């Protein structure tokens, strides 16, 4: 088992919370893990990405080799396209469709979505609305994680356990909200794969 994942977004959007959940679940299943993060200057509203590698065998490089990515998980649609050269022909893009517009020349969202829909494998979802329906827009990242979960090769139970551990101390309400968001995201992906 081996999954090479790129997490993409804009500095401050919290892609690392998704990475933390996947990482925790992978460790629980006894897998090897490497996760390269971006800290420093780019965190100030710039494009950020994290390389996350999980495998049943030992992992060498912290960076995923070009063209070997199995999964791009994006919390912002334009950012999902930035890492296309890394994607393997059988790889999937899972992305939120809500733009984060902090640049003067942000393209028309319709054109961005058309570009994503040209790719062979994708799941695009309105994570913000799904999260709102679950109880809070703050859980949008967990909706995205849920939509990515059928492709991760991890047991749904271990991802839920990871959420329990990571949100431990924030109260049972918060944990249940995030698990609900995860499940709704997963259900959407299973229906729209």
């Amino acid at each position, binding site marked *: 088992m081996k999954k090479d994942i790129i997490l993409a977004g804009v500095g401050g959007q919290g892609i690392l919370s998704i990475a933390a959940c996947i990482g925790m679940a992978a*460790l629980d299943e006894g897998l090897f893990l490497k996760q390269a993060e971006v*800290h420093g200057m780019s965190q100030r509203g710039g494009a950020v990405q994290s390389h996350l590698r999980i495998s049943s065998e030992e992992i060498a490089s912290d960076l995923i080799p070009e*063209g070997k990515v199995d999964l791009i998980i994006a919390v912002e649609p334009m950012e999902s396209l*930035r890492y296309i*050269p890394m994607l393997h022909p059988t790889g999937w893009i899972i992305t939120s469709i809500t733009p984060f517009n902090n640049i003067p020349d942000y*393209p028309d969202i319709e054109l961005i979505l058309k570009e994503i829909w040209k790719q062979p494998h994708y799941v695009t979802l309105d994570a913000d609305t799904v999260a709102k329906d679950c109880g809070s827009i703050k859980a949008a990242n967990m909706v995205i994680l849920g939509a990515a979960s059928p492709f991760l090769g991890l047991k749904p139970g271990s991802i839920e356990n990871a959420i329990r551990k990571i949100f431990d101390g924030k109260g049972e309400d918060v944990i249940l909200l995030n698990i609900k968001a995860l499940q709704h995201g997963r259900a959407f992906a299973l229906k729209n794969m």
Partner: protein
Amino acid sequence: MEKLLLLGDEAIAQAAIDAGMSGIYAYPGTPSTEIMEYVQASPEAKMHHIRSLWSANEKTAMETALGMSYAGKRAMVCMKHVGLNVAADAFINAAITGANGGLIVVSADDPSMHSSQNEQDSRFYGKFALIPILEPANQQEAYDMVHYGFQLSEDLHVPVLLRITTRLAHSRTGIQRLERRDQNTLRLPSNLKQFILLPSIARKQYRELLTKQSHFEAASDISDFNRYYDHADKKTGIIACGLAFNYLIENFPGHVVPHPVLKIGQYPVPRDAVNLLYESCEEILVLEDGYPIIEELLKGMLNKGKKIKGRLDGTLPRDGELSPAIVSEALGIPHFRGNEVPSIVKNRPPRLCDGCGHNDAFLALNEALEMYGRGRVFSDIGCYTLSALEPLESINSCVDMGASITMAIGAADAGLVPAVAAIGDSTFTHSGITGLLDAINNNSPITVLILDNSTTGMTGGQTSSAYGKVEDICRGLGVSDDHIHIIKPLRKHHEENMAIIQKELAYNGVSVIIPRRECIQTLNRKMRQKAKVKSMEVPS
């Protein structure tokens, strides 16, 4: 023991705690910051009374760590690569004094300049200082090297340089811990003159350092961090340093490379192993994530030996960090590249946060300077350097910590009047104070903006040494009270702030304007914490 999921930086910090370190000294700098932050947050470090406060700059950090080593205890000092330039005087001379308690200097390089102004390779500094260097290939080695490094430092009475790079520092993986060691007790050096570098003693100490070179080489020869893997395809022999080893083996199924490989993790370079590789193979490929140090040594000035491939002959790019793809191309292994990035995707560079006070300060400065024209704002290293980008485009220089004030003095000396310096509060106490003293003694016609967000912002909001002291320092240096102004950088005060800047630009002497408003990031963090505490309070 259960594995811990740690960043490379955090693995180094945990290792130092486990290896009986008594104090850690640092100034924040990407990608080294998380080492100190981890120790500061560690309950174990607190329990063992490990000293862990930020220093004013890397030089003071280096010297303080040397003082702890003098007193017989283990100390670590951490910085980003350019921080080692600031600490260089102390660093080079610490090699001459030697260490008493174990002393590890961590320098975090940033090849590809993700968050830096250059990509200098700290291994040159280690070679320059004539001390052993450790360069981990992965986070577990980084952990192990700290234990080993403290021991090596105490056995050979020398500081040890631990050189890491961004990818190792900021990548997370499972770490297996070693057994805990106790801290050293207070123990003076056996020779109380060892640290007095008067020429007569320094000459003796330097000769001792030169004599120790053979011990350092012997340690490298038997080090577990240097490994020779013999394989059948002897057309090309490969030297892979640090992280480059991972990029190499990533390209082969089962991580088995068909060529002989020398993995280097400890310097001086293990000479016998290099010789064996050179003699057994037709040509040598050198993979270094940084400058071509070993490649250059092997080639020599005349390059009359076997073919040496690497960054100098174009087999690898001359600059930037390595990657699995770059290494596969160097080896002639085909690799798949996905589709091009669609042209619709626009760049998204970093920018000042919404609501950041720096934004309002620069809007006022821009307007105040309109009558003089562009090209007279010297700036410094910090979040405010982002004012170079659209839409502000306020500044004209960013060179090194503190250079804003001193470059403004020089430009004013040349006749560029008024000249403006824009520097942050933390950068000011790091390296700006002496420059301001020069300006006072020179009576330079410059206007200094000390952008005070009350934190070290760019690296994530660490305590600023300047906190609550900026105007007192300026007064103490001799800036006249009439020409020190504290302004609040808010849109609603724009006209008023602009008028103050304009008035001081016209003054023929040193003025200091302090736009003071807390960093929006640290402010938000505090508000969230407050809300959390409130929600936890039980209503009476």
